[in-house]
């Protein structure tokens, strides 16, 4: 990520964690006359919790309004259309279906419907069996009815974060990556924040949006004690050619611990199935496991019988940073001055993220920070053309203007050299960074054909040595030696 070296950056606000919450908070605050620094321990933004989740903008019926997460979900959902216009990220309100497979489950649908209506979820609809099959012909024939929430949608979480961060940067936010906070102390009216590699940042206000590590960061700042419990979710990604692709996001009736295993038509045309839900110990354990993966296939087939293991192109897992009570914890710390906690942001964190930005902006103000609007705040980011979105005539014009758009580097996702070069110029200089920014390597061959081309482009564009090319961060170097 294009980031500052931050030998001794002095800021008004430091936000720790450049995931969905942190980036939305940064962008929201970038509308005011503040010096803001956004810190992340990874090599790029969105490489923690926000890298791997279901990518769903929820429909507002899963939780009771007594929860903060539910209130922020409702508000966040409504903010997405405008954000899409401003930030140019792929987003589709495809709608959500919850399918009941028996009468017992249908009773729970009743409950979800009532809750959704109370929450003000727009357009929510109880569906008969017939209506369900009209909306989704690929459903399991055992489906007896369900719920339709047309306001639900899909997006790629990292792609959204990239856009939000770009907008924040455009409005003056400094992004510092590879910055793992290990220590902090008060220095007058400020915090002095130390990174593992010795770099320092000073800030008057600190927002703790550190995801899985929010408990650790809270401890470092002498703030509240709490524990983030990582809950693993494993997924399979299916080829865009799969016959199992539904029109809408398909949910089973939720269980006590999770919203269940979904079949998700991603905004980019692939299909995601999962997630599992398993409490684990290690906050860095994003491995996949044979038993869980089998479970995913079984459960997904209960929604769409056409799900086939031959369509699987990759498996991955993500971690939910859960708190014991299951709700978000967003508040001004009672122990550490000018320290704001944004913790426990699990599902529906993506949906809520824009609303979390607003909410935290108000908390920053409440904590005493004066917010003066910038006269020249620009909510828009420049649109990046993607050849696969264009017809041949439009593409021809684009290639005439920049021939690198004519060089298809990633054949599976149809990503051109120009798009990859643009990602590199924006600071995405690892294979994963480029993959998450452009989609190159995310398709059916999983980088088998294009990885070496991307390595060569990285060397050409940055002048870095082959030895320094990483998959994602220090230690993940791809090439050990040369002949």
């Amino acid at each position, binding site marked *: 990520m294009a980031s500052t070296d931050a030998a001794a950056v002095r800021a008004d606000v430091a936000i720790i964690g450049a995931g969905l919450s942190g980036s939305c908070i940064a962008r929201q605050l970038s509308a005011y006359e503040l010096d803001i620094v956004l810190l992340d321990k990874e090599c790029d933004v969105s490489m923690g919790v926000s890298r791997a989740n279901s990518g769903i903008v929820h429909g507002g019926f899963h939780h009771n309004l007594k929860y903060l997460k539910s209130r922020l979900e409702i508000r966040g959902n409504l903010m997405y259309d405008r954000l899409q216009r401003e930030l140019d990220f792929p987003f589709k309100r495809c709608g959500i279906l919850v399918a009941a497979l028996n009468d017992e489950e249908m009773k729970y649908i009743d409950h979800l419907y009532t809750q959704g209506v109370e929450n003000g979820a727009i357009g929510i609809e109880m569906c008969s069996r017939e209506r369900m099959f009209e909306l989704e012909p690929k459903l399991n024939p055992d489906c007896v009815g369900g719920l339709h929430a047309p306001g639900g949608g899909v997006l790629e979480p990292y792609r959204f974060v990239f856009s939000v961060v770009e907008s924040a940067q455009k409005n003056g936010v400094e992004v510092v990556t590879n910055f793992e906070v290990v220590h902090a102390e008060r220095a007058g009216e400020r915090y002095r924040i130390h990174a593992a590699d010795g770099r320092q940042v000073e800030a008057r206000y600190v927002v703790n949006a550190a995801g899985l590590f929010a408990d650790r960061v809270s401890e470092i700042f002498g703030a509240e004690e709490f524990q983030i419990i990582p809950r693993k979710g494993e997924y399979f990604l299916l080829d865009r050619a799969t016959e199992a692709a539904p029109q809408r996001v398909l949910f089973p009736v939720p269980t006590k611990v999770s919203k269940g295993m979904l079949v998700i038509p991603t905004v980019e045309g692939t299909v995601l199935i999962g997630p599992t839900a398993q409490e684990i110990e290690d906050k860095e354990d994003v491995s996949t496991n044979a038993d869980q993966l089998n479970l995913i296939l079984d459960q997904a087939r209960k929604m769409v019988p056409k799900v086939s293991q031959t369509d699987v192109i990759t*498996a991955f897992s993500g971690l939910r940073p859960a708190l014991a009570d299951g709700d978000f914890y967003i508040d001004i710390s009672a122990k550490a001055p000018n320290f704001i906690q944004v913790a426990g942001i699990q599902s529906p964190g993506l949906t809520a993220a824009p609303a979390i930005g607003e909410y935290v902006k108000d908390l920053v103000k409440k904590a005493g920070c004066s917010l003066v609007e910038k006269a020249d705040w620009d909510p828009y980011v420049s649109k990046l053309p993607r050849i696969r979105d264009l017809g041949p*005539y439009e593409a021809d014009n684009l*290639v005439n203007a920049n021939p690198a758009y004519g060089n298809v580097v990633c054949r599976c996702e149809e990503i051109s050299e120009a798009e990859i070069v643009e990602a590199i110029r924006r600071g995405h200089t690892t294979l994963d960074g480029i993959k998450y920014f452009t989609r190159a390597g995310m398709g059916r*061959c999983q980088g088998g054909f294009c990885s070496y081309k991307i390595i060569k482009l990285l060397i050409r564009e940055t002048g870095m040595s082959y030895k320094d090319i990483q998959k994602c961060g220090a230690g*993940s170097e791809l090439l050990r030696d040369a*002949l």
Partner: protein
Amino acid sequence: MHCEGREGMKELQYDVLVIGAGAAGLAAALEVSRNNASCALVERESHLGGILIQCIHNGFGLEEYKEELTGPEFAERQVQAVRAADVDIFTDTTVTQLNAENDRKEAYCYSAVYGVLRISVRAVILAMGCRERNRGNIRTPGTRPAGVYTAGLAQRLVNIEGYIPGQDVVIVGSGDIGLIMARRMTWVGAKVHAVIEIQPYPSGLTRNIVQCLNDFDIPLYLSHVVSRIEGKQRVEKVQVSPLTNGIPDEENSFEIPCDTLLLSVGLIPENELSKEAGMEINPQTNGALVDATMMTSIDGVFSCGNVLHVHDLADWVAEEARRAGAYAVRYLRNERPKRQIRIKAGANVRYINPAMFDPDNPDKLYFRSLIVKNQAKLQIKLDHKPVKEVRLSHVQPSEMLHVKLKPKDVAGWNIMKDSVLEVSIE
């Protein structure tokens, strides 16, 4: 070459478009040109020869050129012939869309040099080759660190770019690419610790087992799988499990420390363009369903080489492609078979290609065995009646077989409209 512009986009017209310039595309294009049809050959890479270029080992050309060549040498002979012929070659050009349902077919091609090209033709020959199956396709659990490569990608990195992806290597799959890479990695100074094969028998040629594994004392674990990949940033070790009744036996698993895992776990014909064009696919081969003239379910679209079915030998790819080229030209002249009957894969035969048989023009059939056997017998039946028998000294699933029927074989056959030819192995 006719060139006319519309809104600036370049439009070209030919008799035949060949997509892909590997062993198949080069042979097909040459044959089209020899038969005096105009031909465009479109290749997405900057070089001709496809994957042959990175196959620097020997073992090519014994059938095509009657001498043993390396991959680049085989490609160079093909390329020289095509360059000398009247074929228009477009490198660095990717076909992104094929509209093939009409008499005149159109392909949209993206290129940094030409911009977007619209190539309009009467016949198309698909020769896009195949891709490697990857970790996701075999669903290997564990972490997702750097150091997991398909064998072909590693081959590219080592042989063309000169990079060494890792020093301590485990290879999954005993297919020929995996075996060749075991030797290649050893010869560039890496240590290959093991080759892990899920089947009870090796998938590659015996010659490669001997010369690429035994020569270097690399152990081959048959009926084993890599059941877990470990390592946070880079591969640190893999867990290897024997298979008991097809299930990984956790108790008898062992670990191999390594920094690199190479996957040689099969190839899949790259038919995405074909599927989008609406072609029928044979689920046994993942290639198009073709008739006796190598024509797919779309009139005027032909398929050959590894995009039709995965071959063991480039020589056979070239041979098959040449026939596809010749049939495409006959199609241009409206020379179509008078009659065709269905061919069926019988006992112990995984698939047979093509799927139709022209009794008036008997031709070569390629097929694969489901069993390992010495002194096997190929049995061909017409409507359940044996019509031909061929002795096969040795059959195994990893070695493609072929048989060529001759007019005298067919002479006495009583062929009806709905007759079926069944090919089985005993």
